[in-house]
């Protein structure tokens, strides 16, 4: 099958890699590969910490994709940081939030170990450096800056937060600001939790890099790093991991996450010859290998996951 993929973020590239592996012809078009949400993403493979009431479908998808990650990372030659996630609460209200999350995880039979200090270990979670993943994928998947035209059997839209009309209102940009620091005393595993009611995460990499995120706001304007956003992130991160006080602040980045109305991605056909692989919101890195399989399976067999079928959000005047 001759396929064209618009968008070389982690989703477009993962789909391209899977299609290539299955013997299909792939043309990937992106003037700036890996420069969208993938560039900002912390790379948490953390479906349990992401779980919320009413979003059990996402937990199931996340766990399914998490199970694919060890082989995916090994194949790409990218290290997987698989020491789990520690859930922490700063003040009494934040600790109540941790307890509520644990109760929810227990209800869904997701593993969560309460530790003596009140924090909670989610032992099967992991993290990966999305930039390293994108680099590894780009080494295998050629990307052209402009659409060369030519005949294709199917076009796959993987342009994240910006879809062309008439699909543009199916995703909205949800701005996230994220920091990268260099620390000689990083936490041994991902820390996630709440500080004075606001969510925070601290993700360590093997090389001493620590990623701190993330703000979440909906804006019409282009994503920029704000003073207030950096202040909030650093204040909260230093409270959950005090050693960050001496860390070198290396980078601050803002990007739009591709949010959908129901927080689930859009994976499947929208028109003859047109397939979406977009709208992955906070879960693009986690869901990349699963999305790649789902798109390839769809092209080969026509199967579509009903929960992810983009046509669920078409109709009406959306």
């Amino acid at each position, binding site marked *: 099958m001759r396929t064209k993929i618009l968008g070389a973020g982690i989703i477009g590239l993962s789909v391209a890699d899977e299609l290539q592996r299955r013997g299909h012809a792939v043309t990937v078009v992106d003037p700036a590969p890996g420069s969208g949400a993938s560039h900002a993403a912390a790379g948490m493979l953390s479906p349990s910490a992401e779980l919320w009431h009413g*979003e059990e479908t996402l937990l199931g998808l996340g766990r399914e994709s998490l199970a694919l990650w060890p082989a995916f990372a090994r194949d790409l030659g990218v290290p997987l940081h698989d020491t789990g996630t520690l859930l922490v609460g700063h003040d009494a209200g934040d600790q109540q939030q941790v307890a509520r999350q644990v109760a929810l995880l227990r209800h869904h039979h997701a593993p969560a170990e309460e530790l003596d200090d009140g924090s909670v270990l989610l032992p099967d979670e992991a993290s990966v450096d999305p930039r390293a993943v994108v680099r590894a994928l780009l080494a295998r998947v050629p990307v052209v800056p402009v659409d060369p035209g030519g005949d294709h059997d199917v076009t796959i839209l993987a342009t994240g937060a910006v879809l062309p009309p008439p699909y543009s209102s199916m995703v909205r940009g949800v701005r996230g600001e994220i920091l990268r620091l260099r620390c000689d005393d990083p936490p041994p595993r991902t820390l996630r939790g709440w500080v004075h009611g606001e969510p925070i995460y601290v993700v360590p990499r093997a090389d001493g890099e620590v990623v701190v995120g993330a703000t979440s706001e909906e804006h019409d304007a282009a994503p920029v790093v704000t003073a207030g956003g950096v202040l909030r992130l650093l204040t909260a991160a230093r409270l959950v991991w005090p050693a960050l006080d001496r860390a070198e602040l290396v980078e601050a980045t803002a990007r739009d996450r591709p949010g959908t109305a129901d*927080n689930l991605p859009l994976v499947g056909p929208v028109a003859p010859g047109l397939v979406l692989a977009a709208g992955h919101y906070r879960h693009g890195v986690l869901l990349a290998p699963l999305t790649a399989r789902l798109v390839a399976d769809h092209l080969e067999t026509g199967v579509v996951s009903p929960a992810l079928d983009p046509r669920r959000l078409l109709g009406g005047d*959306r």
Partner: protein
Amino acid sequence: MSGLTIAGRELTSRLLLGTGGLPSLALLEPVLAAADPGLVTVSVRRTSSTREGGLLSVLRRHGVPLLPNTAGCLTAREAVLTAELAREALETDWVKLEVIGDETSLLPDAVGLLDAADQLVRRGFTVLPYTTDDPVLARRLSDVGCAAVMPLGSPIGSGLGVLNPHAIEAVRAAVAVPVVLDAGVGTASDAALAMELGCDAVLAATAVTRADDPVAMARALRLAVEAGHAARGAGRIPRRAVARASSPTAGRI
């Protein structure tokens, strides 16, 4: 219609809703359908999303009247500026005025609140101030021309309910304008109690948006507000120190 009129506009319901913190945008329409709110508050910032597919576009399509708030403002100056921005962006001169005293307690700053309310009334706004449960401050806010007062039951987002019912009754007695219980509602009984105490309406946000099932809680609060309002009108029996049989005792065998 609910029979509740604020500044000459009759509201369709005595439940007002805040939408901040809803886990997904897809929940907004079913929550609105279940709550049937008379007004929906929206937070306005210098840059808010107005584009198709965002929160505001869903609210506008639904047609529920919007009440912009000045959430997060720490000074009267900031609140007045935010109200002006909201008037431009949302084309309404109604504003739920919040001037927060500190970011830990999120309690209103009484001095800044009264100052901002006075300024905004003079600028032609219909002002609904989020205030403490202090009847004297409520009267002062009413005196400067606020269209309603919105005393807290307990701190924002705490879900602790109405911690001082006597103070809410005193606020009710202190002003002629409508009283809207704002902040602290955690579940249906809190909303019913507020209405039984004489509030004209209840505003709920976190109680709905962070409930396990926001749609079910929206419905519960709508019913509770209606029940509490009806009970207030029905006239409750006094609390007696001793039991009193409800069946006649004469003619027993």
